[in-house]
């Protein structure tokens, strides 16, 4: 069954006719420097959160006398937590002490200890589960992958088709701009959540017949976004994206741009093939502040929101959707000739429209 599914999927991708409805004038100003990601900037080796063993030793030997006092007190605090039953890991390494030193308050330290306790228990429970599973008898293979009529398609061939489409989109297709200038207002956890949402949106995008070309602007080369994007599976140089420090307004005219935000001025009725859409690179878990709308007002770009109230009975939840949902909805509308109901039913989570 799996091979059958893969076959039919690949057959759909082989293009018979390719039509891009973007205005070629918007693509004329694209310079070759912006098209491909250059390897002049060295790729980071460590995620920004983690500290290596050697760095930790250096930090712990070069402490100021105030920090040494604080370290001693924190070790006492750890002992007190351990003996009173607070959720605290069994072993503490030198890297963990370095991260705990930076935390300002008791509550933030407790949350960090709780997180490490949970990861320890997860690893222990997974080991037990694997040991249990090894004792049980293995089920027989239901499908024989060799000596079969059906054409077995491997993942590498599928990826070759996908990346072929993406490279074609890079040269001729419509771009989707990501505005990454909001890095200062996001916490570490939100940055990581943004990158996981990017993973999903990348997979949705590449499997489509006419994908977007993702281009990221206002990225800081020593920032957290750039650091984290390298660590989600593959090196950034293998993926056909554009990642640049410049502003997107240097390249594209304001007349052609449309900014998508949950607080937009007007509701969207149909997909405009002559325009280029912008998504703000924000994950707001903490506060709902209209940052993208403020930026659109400042730069005098048209701002637009999805017609959620018109097609859905909203019961609970915030009306700001995640990035993979937005990308999926845009792709569906482009193909289906503005069939909003089908796009929303596929991508908007059901818990937001759930009725008892």
């Amino acid at each position, binding site marked *: 069954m799996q091979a059958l599914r893969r076959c039919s999927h690949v057959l759909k991708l082989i293009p018979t006719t390719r039509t891009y409805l973007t205005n070629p004038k918007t693509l004329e100003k694209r310079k070759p420097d912006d098209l491909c990601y250059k390897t002049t900037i060295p790729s980071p080796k460590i995620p920004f959160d983690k500290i290596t063993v050697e760095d930790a030793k250096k930090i712990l030997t070069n402490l100021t006398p105030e920090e040494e006092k604080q370290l001693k007190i924190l070790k*006492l605090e750890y*002992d*007190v937590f*351990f*003996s009173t*039953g607070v959720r605290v890991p069994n072993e503490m390494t030198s890297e963990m002490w370095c991260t705990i030193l930076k935390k300002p308050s008791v509550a933030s330290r407790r949350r960090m200890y709780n997180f490490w306790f949970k990861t320890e228990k997860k690893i222990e429970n997974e080991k037990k589960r694997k040991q249990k599973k090894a004792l049980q008898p293995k089920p027989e293979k239901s499908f024989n992958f060799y000596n079969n009529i059906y054409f077995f398609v491997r993942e590498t061939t599928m990826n070759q088709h996908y990346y072929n489409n993406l490279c074609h989109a890079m040269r001729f297709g419509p771009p989707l701009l990501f505005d990454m200038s909001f890095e200062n207002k996001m916490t570490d956890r939100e940055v990581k959540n943004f990158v996981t949402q990017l993973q999903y949106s990348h997979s949705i995008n590449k499997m489509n017949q006419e994908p977007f070309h993702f281009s990221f602007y206002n990225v800081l080369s020593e920032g957290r976004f750039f650091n984290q994007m390298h660590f989600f599976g593959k090196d950034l140089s293998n993926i056909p994206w554009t990642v640049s420090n410049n502003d997107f307004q240097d390249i594209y005219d304001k007349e052609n741009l449309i900014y998508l935000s949950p607080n937009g001025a007007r509701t969207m009725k149909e997909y405009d093939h002559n325009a280029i859409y912008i998504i703000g690179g924000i994950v707001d878990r903490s506060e709902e502040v*209209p940052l993208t709308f403020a930026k659109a007002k400042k730069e005098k770009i048209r701002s637009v929101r999805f017609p959620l109230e018109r097609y859905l009975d909203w019961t609970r939840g915030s009306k700001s959707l995640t990035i993979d949902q937005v990308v999926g909805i845009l792709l569906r509308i482009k193909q289906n000739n503005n069939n909003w109901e089908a796009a929303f039913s596929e991508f908007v989570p059901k818990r937001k429209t759930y009725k008892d």
Partner: protein
Amino acid sequence: MFKLLTGRGLRPILLFNNFKGSIRTIKSDARNDEHFQTVLSFIKDNQYKDIDFWVECDRKINSLNINERFKQVWTNALLRHYAHQSDLKKDDFELGISLYDYMKSKKVDDRNRLTILSAALRLCGERGSSETDRIDQLLTEIHQIADFFDVDTCQSIIIGLSATDRWRDGYRYLDMAKLTSHTLGPEFYSPLFRAALRFDDKKEVDKLAKALHEHDVYVSEKIVNYFIQKGKKWLLDLLFYYYEYRWIPGARQMELIKEAFVREGYCINNIEPRKSTCPCCSQKLLPLPKLGLTDFERLRRSFLKLAVERDDIFLSTTIEELQRFITFMNESGRFDMIVDGLNVAYAAPKHITLKQRAELLRSVINYLVDVRRKRVLVLGRKHMLSWPGKFMDEIQDKAKCFFVDNKSEDDKMTLYAALSSGRQTQIVTLDELRDHKYLLGGELGLKANNCFLRYGRELIKYHF
């Protein structure tokens, strides 16, 4: 001396919050564990128990099918359960002491020793001045482990010291606790209050109240109870501190103070806000201190400068709209009253139609203009222009109107208009406008909060 503001109809902002509950502490210890209740079920009589009883308890719990962490930790959790009670009784104290004697006899790591000693210190400190010998012994043992302690042990040491004569050493441990946490709650200050009140030391109590004010700490129920237990003289001093430092007590605290006065033989009448004399003895009452002219000028200058020059303007409005509003204000002059149109119209219950809301607004503005003879400004949004014409025409004839985009907020404009019009303008909203406190600062510094609160008392609120 103190104005209790209650009344009907048009009433100013109530002086006390309606927050009647106590702040719940999150117990993430083993006390919050599901198996802790089984431990409590073994102990039925609240009397002093021998070591044999605790040995049996230990054996019973080790035989149960529970995770091992809890088996190592249940004694500490029980001790803390007795030590952290607010009103410690004699029976619980004796139970705790018996547990402590049992745990001393066992061999224990340095890790567990700290927690046992700190919990025992807390127990003895809450009990009172009859346990000074034990407290001295515990303190010497604690200092053998380390010189600098963390937040929990510092708190328990302060409680222990407050029962003895050398309670002033508690200040040292307060500073020690600030090394690892930037804010401290009122649980650190309440034992110091208790000790200072026990010795009837007025200077120290003044010092402590000032420290509470400087570090922005709220007054907890415990502190109020300590004052009440002392008597009438200290109660009046408490109320004086409320007046001087502009503290706003909760409803529960006011009830406790009221009951305390009733026990002393006073009768309490509710005073109407506009009368300035007491109904019983016809003495003049001290009014609440209003904003002085100099403070108001500073508020005005800092707000007008900061509101216009910030980068966050686009989060609520645009530059063009603000400038349009500023030219409008310069042309139109000063106002007596500023009405937040949407807030007043939508303050009514939900099942009212749009027509009735417009009628509400019209009636409010008719009252202010015809009866009170005031010059009124109405702020709203552009969709209000599409409300029924007969009401909106009358509003626009009697009062000046300014309408803002449908997507932008008008809070800054109300404050700008009120502060630039002068000292005696008033704003009509149900909104407390606390979001805009961050715009002040600079010249005012630490006083910004108080100035804004005092200014906010002059707002009018309508009650439906």
